[in-house]
């Protein structure tokens, strides 16, 4: 048994996968350093040093076999943060290398592939919800700021959506759980990783003068557009699960 320890990055994972083939490891487990607790004392530890060249070779080969959309599915699995994501992705890569002519991601009879399909569905659903449920608040410094706390790490998946949509305003989306964010400053749209947790309470007190007014208008609109005679709370909660409520302007008044 060999345990490959990698740095938790996407390229790191694919470097590890490259080395599984390179060193012909048979019985392996890939674990990110952060999550590693040595339990199996008989396992051999192999430290992986992330090398883009190795990662790219695996990804290029894969793209030939399963296409760009296939790679995109594996990215979603990676972002799902499932505890066994490394094992599922390794399994898919192995299958794809073994059957290069087929798109093995469509072989739903295989347990790992079915898992991938299911994870992709959940991650895509969360991605879509984050395009819908993000609520920006305008700050004194003219930045439109939003907090999110998604179950999966979908921030990289919504970057393009917001970049295309809001080109003439500065905006920031901050993932509270993972402590990183996206910032658009009218020129570039990049991720940022603060050293310390941002003191949000302090930041939030710096609302733009007009912000509270628009929030109130939206809340009143939300209230008034409801048809009381047709009340259907079960359906309502199905569409807007309660875990999102605390970040929705219309739900907090």
């Amino acid at each position, binding site marked *: 048994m060999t345990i490959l320890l990698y740095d938790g990055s996407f390229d790191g994972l694919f470097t590890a996968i490259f080395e599984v083939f390179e060193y012909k490891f048979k019985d392996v487990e890939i674990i990110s350093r952060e999550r590693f607790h040595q339990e199996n004392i008989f396992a051999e530890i192999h430290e992986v040093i992330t090398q883009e060249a190795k990662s790219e070779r695996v990804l290029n080969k894969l793209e030939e076999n399963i296409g760009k959309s296939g790679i995109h599915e594996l990215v979603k699995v990676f972002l799902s943060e499932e505890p066994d994501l490394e094992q599922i992705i390794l399994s898919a890569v192995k299958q794809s290398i073994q059957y290069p002519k087929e798109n093995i991601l469509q072989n*739903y009879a295989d347990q790992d592939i079915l898992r991938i399909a299911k994870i992709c569905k959940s991650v895509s659903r969360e991605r*879509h919800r984050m*395009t*819908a*449920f*993000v*609520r*920006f*608040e*305008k700050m004194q410094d003219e930045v*439109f700021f*939003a907090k999110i706390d998604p179950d999966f790490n979908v921030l990289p998946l919504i970057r393009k959506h917001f970049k*295309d*949509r*809001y*080109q*003439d*305003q500065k905006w920031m989306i901050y993932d509270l759980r993972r402590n990183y964010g996206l910032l658009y400053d009218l020129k570039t749209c990049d991720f940022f990783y603060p050293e310390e947790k941002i003191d949000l309470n302090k930041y939030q007190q710096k609302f733009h003068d*007009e912000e509270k*007014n*628009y929030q*109130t*208008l*939206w809340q*009143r*609109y*939300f209230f*008034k*557009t*409801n*048809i*009381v*005679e*047709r*009340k*259907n*709370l*079960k*359906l*309502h909660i*199905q*569409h*807007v699960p309660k875990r999102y409520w605390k970040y*929705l*302007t*219309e739900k907090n008044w």
Partner: protein
Amino acid sequence: MNFDRLKEKLEILADAAKYDVSCSSSGGSRKNKKGALGDSSASGICHTYTEDGRCVSLLKVLLTNHCIYDCAYCVSRSSNDIKRAAFTVEEVVDLTINFYRRNYIEGLFLSSGIFKNADTTMERLVRVAKKLRLEENFNGYIHLKSIPGASDLLMQEAALYADRLSINIEIPTESGLKLLAPEKNREDMLNPMKYIQSGITQYKEEKKIFRKVPKFAPAGQSTQMIVGATNENDLQIIKVADHFYKNYNLKRVYYSGYVPVLEDTRLPALTTAVPMLRENRLYQSDWLMRFYGFKADEILDPHMPFLDLEVDPKLSWALRHLDQFPINLQSADYQMILRIPGIGVKTAKKIVSARRFQVLTIENLQKLGAAVNRAKYFIDFNAGNVFLRHLTDLNLKKLLIGGSTSKFQDQFSQQLTLF
């Protein structure tokens, strides 16, 4: 800007617009020009949901609820003693932009009571759309409600700036319309629709020849009918919808169960329940016509002018046509597989591709996403299907209803719980 007054107006004019069902932001795409605001894609996004379970995708408001007409079913009718308000063009534009910037909405749905006359009102609606597009560089979604009787010239302009246009025909029958909205006539509603339809056709032709043709109502047209305000039957409603799909290429027909809000001898009493289940069945029938290849007179006929409230219209059709079943999954064509209760469009497509590789079993069918509890009675698997002995059973319907739980079950038992 006087915030308190704006808030009051928004409350009045959102409240008055809420009975319009249509709120989708789908069907058109508008790419952001470099550096501007907004970008819409064909699939649309619902940003939130009201407590009644309907989605909120657009800021849906009336420009004004002042109206010269006195339509019995409408809260804004001239004889109704309610608070009146009117937005300025600037106010609607400001609300739309500021809501959009905060990611509350996909765009604007703007309707209006009719003040002065059709053209004055329509001109004002167009002005909002025009200002949004030309001055604010806004690429979000705009749905304008066309005003019955508006001139072709204004409709032309509306189609250049809006994504979708619609006129509600409201009452499915002419006689019903005469009774409840004596000042309106059907022709005034149909003419603008016809104009837009021919414009869309022309746009498509020109688009084939020239690369750059200005967009013309890219998300098409829709309409809405109120259900249960007059005594029309479901067959009439479905026929009207079918007529619009066939002759006007409408994208959607919406059905709105009448919410009794006004005391009027011509209307159902205020205590009448909203016909939600009937509305649901109508939507199911609508889907059958648009995606399942059913014709209007297959769903209902003069001997049976109302939809069965106990079972959905597809199952109802199957139960009336048992001679067409069982269906063999390996050999039946796609259109027929679509007619099996419990099998939807996606599953039917999967079946057709999966059966090339292997003979499908009931377990496969379940994994492909079919509602097997319904489908199993109608399918002849090559290996034999024990459930088929029920196909000729007089109690098949009961068996089917027993095997599933309806979200409307409460409504069936309501009378019992009263006592």
